[in-house]
């Protein structure tokens, strides 16, 4: 049995002065080193769930939290917010606000978290250099963070977090401002982080990429965790259709083909599988 790093037990939450629960009785566990994607339509509670994992709920946002959230074996209710920064890196949605506001250039901006963690200066320089190269923003190093475009800021925000080398990365829609090429690059970085043994929780709407990279899926709908499991199982489950969430394009196509009478060898979720899923039948038909 692998290590469980994130564990939620019957978690319900409502924001202050709100009557409705945003999270309703959510329970799941995430094992170390797994890449888990949270999917769901807008306002289904994905970001709130991220906040709960990071400990911003209940430490920053008050409101009523029921149930237990354990990260790295410790109850987040009892951990201090400041202590969690090193353990859980959180990149959030709005890239325009994710700037420290005290640094003149991207290099120092990325270094800011390490300064706060008290890392020696020489080491900071090395680590920042490495991350700038990794995230492909070396050419921005002397620019003012306030003068960057949305996509550039998103990359700087991601770099600023992964440079701190947290064990768990919670990433909330990191590609909303990026073009397809930029998006691929971000996913490449996330995959690299996974290879380095990080546990990754990602909120994302781009199903094709999720199918390509993620291990497990958590499907949120109206505050409830309605489905969970390995990516292929979840997409393959007929129940998934009920929640009106997008399929990966290839799965969508395959399902349509299936409906119109073409049998499938299996349900493809990655682009590269489509041929194989159809081909088997195709070969038989030729005979």
């Amino acid at each position, binding site marked *: 049995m692998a290590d469980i790093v994130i564990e939620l037990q019957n978690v319900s939450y409502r924001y202050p002065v709100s009557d409705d629960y945003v999270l309703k009785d959510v329970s799941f566990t995430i094992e170390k080193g797994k890449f888990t994607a949270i999917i769901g339509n807008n306002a289904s509670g994905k970001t709130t769930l991220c906040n709960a994992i990071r400990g911003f709920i209940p430490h920053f946002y008050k409101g009523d939290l029921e149930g237990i959230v354990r990260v790295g074996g410790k109850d987040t209710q009892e951990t201090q917010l400041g202590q969690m920064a090193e353990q859980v890196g959180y990149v*959030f949605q709005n890239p325009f606000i994710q700037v*420290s506001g005290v640094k003149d250039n991207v290099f120092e901006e990325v270094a800011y978290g390490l300064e*706060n963690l008290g890392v020696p*200066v020489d080491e900071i320089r090395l680590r920042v250099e490495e991350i700038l190269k990794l995230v492909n923003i070396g050419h921005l190093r002397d620019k003012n963070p*306030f003068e960057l475009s949305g996509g550039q800021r998103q990359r700087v925000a991601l770099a*600023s977090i992964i440079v*701190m080398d947290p064990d768990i990365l919670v990433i909330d829609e990191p590609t909303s401002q990026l073009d397809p090429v930029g998006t691929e690059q971000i996913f490449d970085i996330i995959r690299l982080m996974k290879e380095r043994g990080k546990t990754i929780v990602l909120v994302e709407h781009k199903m094709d990429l999720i199918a390509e990279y993620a291990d497990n899926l958590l499907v949120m709908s109206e505050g409830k965790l309605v489905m969970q499991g390995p990516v292929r199982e979840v997409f393959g489950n007929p129940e998934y259709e009920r929640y009106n969430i997008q399929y990966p394009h290839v799965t969508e196509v395959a399902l349509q083909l299936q409906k119109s009478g073409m049998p499938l060898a299996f349900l493809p979720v990655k682009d590269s599988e489509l041929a194989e899923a159809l081909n088997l039948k195709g070969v038989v038909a030729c005979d």
Partner: protein
Amino acid sequence: MKPNALLQLHPMTKFYFSLFILAVVLIVPGYWFAFSVFLGLVAISLLAGVFKEFIGIVLKALVSVLVIVFLMQIFFFPGEQVLWRWWIFEIKQEGVYYGLILTSRILAIGSAFVLFFRMTEVRDFVKSLEDKGMPPMGAYVVLSTLQIIPEMRRQANTIMEAQKTRGVETEGSLFVRAKAFIPTLTPLILSSIAGTEERALTLESRAFSAPVKKTSLHKLTKSRADRILPILFVLIILGLLVWRVVLWQTS
């Protein structure tokens, strides 16, 4: 380009220098001295290569204040020797003398601090205060304010454009523009308040409140001059004080 030795001084040294000027000008009597201190400051600004900005700010900010102060003094300072009189206004010898002393001192002290901020990056100054023990929270407040003001100006422009597309008149007479101000200002303030929440989260996720001692890429070094000059300043002030006391007792 050769780095300027004066600009290279530690911010604290420059700050002590301003305090030193303040003390000296108050200790030494007479306006001739204070005016010559001002000339000295002008010379320093030339050497440091910040003359243009320095003199610009002094002219814009200080001179109007000085003129008002001087006029107040020459007309309203109580005295005997009337130099010139018109209707209820009288210029008195004592008033002129006191006005000159006051304005020369304000000029010297004010321009000493103007020069300080021309020669020192606020970032460096805040860093040196942090080294002296100012909490990082305070340092953050000062530095973020510096960056947020231009950011808010940009945002105000965006909001202004947005309101324009919604048909709010933003050009024309003063009254029209004043009316457009309110629909611009309200969203600006509201969005800034909303922004603070996310800013706080950003800082939190960058380990701002991590319970460890912070390090900094930004290092200030102290040269030999930085160690000697403050001592020199204190010695001169002490010397001047002794001189004043002796002068006062013998007279």
